[in-house]
């Protein structure tokens, strides 16, 4: 399955190998890995909880993947998104794209991330020594998604 929603961590190198295995027609593979980041503000991040909407999440990711495949000549796509309790520095999401050409692989990976940020039903709650708070959606993410619709 090219779309996976899981609590477990993933192995980027193994996922890239799986995408390319036995093929000699791929010219470019782009990976994007999102990590739990401590913003370095006043309060230290102790953990991040990722909640999602089982069922809808998989559907949303599959729809996003199909849209990317319709727009670019992709030879492979992998999307893995974790949920649950994650420590600072932990991997959250992996997007892989494979294509004959680098421009398509780059654009499709950016597109997938931009769409995923605004359309996949995930919510993040950060916990610091001052307690927990839900991460607000960023206007920058909406703008990033919009540019693909022009």
């Amino acid at each position, binding site marked *: 399955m090219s779309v996976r929603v899981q609590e477990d961590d993933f192995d980027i190198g193994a996922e890239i190998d799986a995408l390319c295995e036995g093929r000699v027609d791929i010219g470019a593979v782009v990976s994007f890995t999102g990590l739990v980041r401590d913003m370095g503000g006043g309060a230290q991040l102790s953990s991040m909880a990722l909640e999602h909407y089982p069922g809808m999440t998989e559907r949303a990711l599959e729809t996003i993947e199909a849209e990317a495949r319709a727009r670019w000549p992709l030879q492979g796509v992998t999307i893995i998104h974790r949920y649950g309790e994650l420590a600072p520095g932990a991997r959250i999401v992996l997007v892989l794209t494979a294509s004959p050409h680098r421009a398509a692989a780059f654009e499709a990976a950016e597109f997938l991330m931009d769409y995923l*940020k605004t359309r996949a039903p995930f919510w993040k709650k950060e916990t610091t020594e001052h307690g927990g708070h839900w991460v607000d959606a960023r206007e920058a993410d909406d703008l990033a998604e919009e540019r693909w619709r022009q």
Partner: protein
Amino acid sequence: MRVLYFAWVRERIGLPREEVETSAQTVAELVAELRGREERYALAFSDLSALRVAVDQEVVGFDASLTAAREVAFFPPMTGG
């Protein structure tokens, strides 16, 4: 009808899901019914601009029809990735 709540909507209402008997024809009518129930619902639904809704796992507007709907979910804007 199954109604789901996520993130701070779930926290404010105090449960992740419930079965709701309703004759609401639209999401907006369902919201009005829920608001009338208890303070915690009124609080959760006090600002609809901060909320998103999905009917049968598709994001829709608050004017969407509930005809044949089996599952409605309320949540804040998504923050995946």
